[in-house]
């Protein structure tokens, strides 16, 4: 029985047992599930995706009608999830950067206030905040009939904010071309000007020229009447407002809650990152005659960024996954649309597999993107 004490034999043995166990559990579950489904007359497979959905989605980032397919409904859910998490990440990062810097302020009052802000947000569940914001919107604002008429065509009520919608009649393509071309030109100008400044030591107006390259083409197009925009003004009917762009309270509450929670996390990350930069860097900047603001912007923050990026990645992944709380207040994100699909078609396994797969794929995509950015800002050892 010497082979029992052979490490190589044991290694193989353990691995085979582990794989066998997982396979057995998987197979048993698969067999039971297909038996159960056959008994309940539920067809397996993804055919249901091409059937008409038969339900409406109150808010969609891409066009959707009840007659569209189930697959397109899920696509709408994905687009809504991406929309709200992207916006929350952007707003939250900007706000969090400010709060994080405020936490390190020399003014004790400001620093304490920033601390209170962060603690209040981090110690109370996000779901509770979402419920709270949503009910506050519903409670405080008047019903549609007595909607606040803020500006011509702008109505605010407890069913949301309605503003005039801009419908691009013609020249939309030209507009996109100008924007993309301008952005590319601005990027190139900025990079060359920075390179020039580093090489010669003389400052130039690269930033201003880049800004001009970004703005001027769009402005010219506008002046030349290259874009025709039709404004769709909302009209107040008896019970509801028709037309215009409708920003719903569910979306606002979710975006607000997510952005605040991101900001608290970002503030902590930024604070820790800045504190981790050596004090000598501040002193050296002061010795070179830089003001505190410039020292922060040009010397300390770029170094802090290296420490900040990895946990920041985590925060973005977190907000992306937290956007699934939308279902609690009725914003049609991926989970909520999937839930409706499940109830309508009974295809629970396939639907859950789809939305888990989408979350996984997008999580991995965010990780890869942030890892690339991290490698980009990482200390280059020479």
């Amino acid at each position, binding site marked *: 029985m010497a082979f029992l004490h052979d490490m190589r034999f044991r290694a193989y043995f353990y691995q085979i047992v582990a794989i066998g166990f997982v396979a057995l559990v998987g197979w048993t579950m698969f067999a039971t*599930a297909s038996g159960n489904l056959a008994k309940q007359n539920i067809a397996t497979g993804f055919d249901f995706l091409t059937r008409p959905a038969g339900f409406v989605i109150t808010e969609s980032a891409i066009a959707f009608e009840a007659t569209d397919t189930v697959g397109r409904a899920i696509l709408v859910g994905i687009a809504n999830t991406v929309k709200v998490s992207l916006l929350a990440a952007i707003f939250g990062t900007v706000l969090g950067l400010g709060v994080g810097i405020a936490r390190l302020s020399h003014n004790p009052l400001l620093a304490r206030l920033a601390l209170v802000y962060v603690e209040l947000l981090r110690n109370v569940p996000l779901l509770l905040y979402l419920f709270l914001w949503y009910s506050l919107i519903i409670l405080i604002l008047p019903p549609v009939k007595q909607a606040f008429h803020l500006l011509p065509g702008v109505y605010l009520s407890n069913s949301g904010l309605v503003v005039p919608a801009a419908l691009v009649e013609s020249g939309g393509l030209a507009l996109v071309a100008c924007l993309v071309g301008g952005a590319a030109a601005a990027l190139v100008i900025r990079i060359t000007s920075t390179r020039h400044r580093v090489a010669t030591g003389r400052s130039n107006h690269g930033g201003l020229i880049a800004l001009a390259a970004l703005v001027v083409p769009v402005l010219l197009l506008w002046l030349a009447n290259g874009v025709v925009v039709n404004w769709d003004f909302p009209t107040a009917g008896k019970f509801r407002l028709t037309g215009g762009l409708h920003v719903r309270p569910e979306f606002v509450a979710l975006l607000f809650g997510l952005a605040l929670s991101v900001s608290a996390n970002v503030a902590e990350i930024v604070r820790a990152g800045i504190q981790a930069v050596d004090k000598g860097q501040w002193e050296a900047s002061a010795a070179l005659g830089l003001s505190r603001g410039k020292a922060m912007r040009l010397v300390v923050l770029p170094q802090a960024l290296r420490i900040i990026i990895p946990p920041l990645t985590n925060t973005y992944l977190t907000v992306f996954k937290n956007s699934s709380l939308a279902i609690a207040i009725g914003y049609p994100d991926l989970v909520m649309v999937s839930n409706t699909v499940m109830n309508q078609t009974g295809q629970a396994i396939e639907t859950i597999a789809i939305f888990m797969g989408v979350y996984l794929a997008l999580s991995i995509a965010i990780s890869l993107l942030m890892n690339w950015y991290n490698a980009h800002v990482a200390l280059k050892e020479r």
Partner: protein
Amino acid sequence: MADVQMLVLAPPQPAPTAQRFGKLSAYFGTPGNTIISMLSIAGMFFIAKLAFGWLVIDAVFSGAGEACKAASGACWPFVVQKLRYMVFGFYPYEEQWRPLLALLLLFSVCGVSMVPRFWSRNLLLVWIVVILPVLYILMAGGVFGLTPVATTSWGGLPLSFMLSFVGLTLALPLGIVLALARASNLPAIRVLAVGFIEIVRGVPLISILFMATVMLPLFMPDGVTIDKLVRAQVAIILFASAYIAEIVRGGLQDVPAGQVEAGKSLGLHYWQVMRKIVLPQALKKVIPPMVGLFIGFFQDTTLVTIVGLVDFLDTVRAAIRDPEWQGIAVLEGYLVAAAVYFTFSALMGAYSRFLERYFRTTHA
């Protein structure tokens, strides 16, 4: 979900503002500073006035829904009358001393477990073998003359604490095993562990809760039904174990390779090396981030209300929607809930900071 990284990353803080607090120049040293101070003071004054007006001056202290409807301030009778329901949910009224006792027992055992002197190999074992069964018997009854109470009537604060404490206690051993598997030399075991951890960490908790409540019944043979509470609890355990595994992995990587080699050269086999040499060092290092994770999971248990369990947030929401108080005490209800969650999370946060100081100053 739980954001763990921050605690790992937070460097020693030299309390930047504490010493300067007494000096006036810190507030009014420069024109910019003066403006910031004035604005902060004005803001704080405004909020304090608003809060005081709402909580005290305009508040209603006695009466029923009608009195609250007429007033613009806080509705204290709602809090007083509904508090017992918010805390215990639909647990039978005359038996509610049992969940109360369970909560008190849980708090005191927690308090003892938080003292570093009592940390030992057996603490986790005591939790699993003694504490959790006692709590379960108190809640469920059926023995020692206690009336049986079905899990469907469990609710409120005890349920929230149970989901998070039981979840973390049982996820800990699983997470440690997963971390060891991920660091293993055996490729098949490593791949399985990595697959499980990354899939669970890549999807939201709500999707795993959905899987447990909607999908799992399809995988059960005929006639076998698993309690809904148990299903949600298992989902939380699996979810937590993946995050714990990642934290423990960080601790394992911090243990120098020489420790393993030294153990092997003493003739210890793998499990002995892990149990006696590597894990004690690794686990001690990951206690602070683990507390941070716990705060996150305590808050995340609120998600079970989406799949229909009656946790504390759910009982509060039910109290708000009570016909007698409908639309009157929304803010009151949510603020009570927020205060409870804030208190426990902040206490755990303070404990986590204490641990960081403790580990910096002692060589325990």
